[in-house]
């Protein structure tokens, strides 16, 4: 099963929940017939999960895109490429055709449309994927090259690299999405079986939870569930929303300085406070049941 963990708001505890859930599941299966548990960190702008999991990386893969290169001798300065480029990455000036890599979306349109065949393509690295493992947990993440604007292609490639078209039965993939609700988050949800929404009991948590929930209902027909992190005073606003939208609250982690300190030094919650292991096992069970029922609860 593929579970995407998202929140809208940054800093609510997405990575905390994703890492601890993945860690707990991978150790749960020790006694059973082994099927892989993967944690995939899709927050390619600021991948943090590795700081808590300490994986040993075994393989790397560059994320490359084809960018145009213009043969100035063959170029007649006709400007067709300038006209077709939707991103203004090309200009014809002083008998030369200029190319601005940072604006390019690697769509290939200029190459196809050049009447002289003067544009070829060259591979450029826009990101890096790494995979490995930590103890029983398999891990992968992607890193966006600074200067390249879009995280989405890196996330796409990361998922393709790790998740097979027909995933093994009983294998589990937990995707830690980036904050927000735009394209990269949509890409992290694509193909998932469950949306685990992490929130905090504040107006900010609620505001962003509502945005992500809307995204799920609009674009994906997968069951959602809520985890309230930093729970305690203020839970009512989340409970009210959850009840209105018929999204179950599956777990709560209390607001606690001790937990914050464990997080600060990079210790997994279930290592610092083993009593939470049971809660993550329960969470996993509930999610599995909801996926089996296969109905988005509205």
């Amino acid at each position, binding site marked *: 099963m593929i579970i995407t963990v998202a929140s809208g708001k940054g800093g609510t505890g997405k990575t905390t929940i994703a890492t601890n859930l993945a860690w707990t599941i991978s150790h749960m299966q020790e006694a059973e017939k082994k099927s892989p548990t993967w944690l995939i960190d899709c927050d390619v702008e600021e991948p943090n999960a590795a700081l808590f999991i300490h994986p040993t990386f075994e393989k790397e893969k560059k994320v490359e895109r084809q960018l145009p290169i213009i043969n100035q001798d063959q170029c007649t300065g006709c400007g067709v490429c300038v006209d077709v480029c939707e991103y203004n990455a090309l*200009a014809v*000036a*002083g008998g*030369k055709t*200029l190319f601005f890599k940072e*604006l390019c979306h690697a769509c290939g349109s200029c190459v196809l449309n050049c009447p002289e065949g003067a544009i070829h393509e060259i591979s450029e690295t826009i990101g890096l994927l790494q995979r490995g493992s930590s103890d029983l947990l398999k891990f992968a993440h992607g890193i966006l090259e600074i200067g390249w604007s879009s995280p989405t292609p890196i996330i796409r490639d990361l998922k393709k690299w790790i998740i097979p078209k027909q995933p093994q039965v009983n294998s589990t993939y937990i995707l830690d999405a980036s904050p927000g609700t735009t394209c990269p988050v949509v890409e992290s949800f694509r193909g998932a079986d469950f949306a685990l929404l992490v929130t905090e009991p504040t107006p900010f948590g609620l505001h962003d939870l509502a945005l992500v929930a809307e995204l799920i209902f609009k674009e994906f027909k997968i069951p959602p569930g809520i985890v309230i992190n930093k729970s305690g005073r203020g839970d009512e606003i989340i409970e009210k929303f959850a009840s209105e939208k018929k999204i179950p609250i599956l777990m709560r982690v209390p607001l606690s300085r001790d937990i914050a300190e464990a997080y600060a030094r990079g210790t997994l919650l279930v290592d610092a406070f083993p009593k939470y292991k049971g809660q993550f096992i329960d969470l996993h069970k509930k999610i599995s049941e909801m996926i089996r029922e296969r109905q988005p609860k509205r």
Partner: protein
Amino acid sequence: MHIAITLADNKGLESSISSVFARCPFYILIDPKTKIFTIEENPAQNASGGAGVKAAQWMIDKEATAVITGNLGPKAHDVLSSANMPAFKSQGGNIEETLKAYNEKELESFFEPNVDAHSGIQK
């Protein structure tokens, strides 16, 4: 022979000059001697990205002989300098004053893109 100047509005020769190159709403193309002019909407103002490139390309295609604006980003600068298009920094004032300064060669040329230079906060 006409030069391009970035405008903040369209009030004919009374228009205000804009310091923004790529996303100002209008451009005037004006003959600095005869003052014959046209004002056109800037096609780059709503570009998702690369507005500077698009605006510079437009001026080249319109065969402007020079550009006067407040700030020029690095990409726009590259395009204009590749085309050997002279570009000058406006000094404020209105169109008439700017043309006078241009004709008397008082305007500073853009050597380097100047939008990197932030007015700064002391450390």
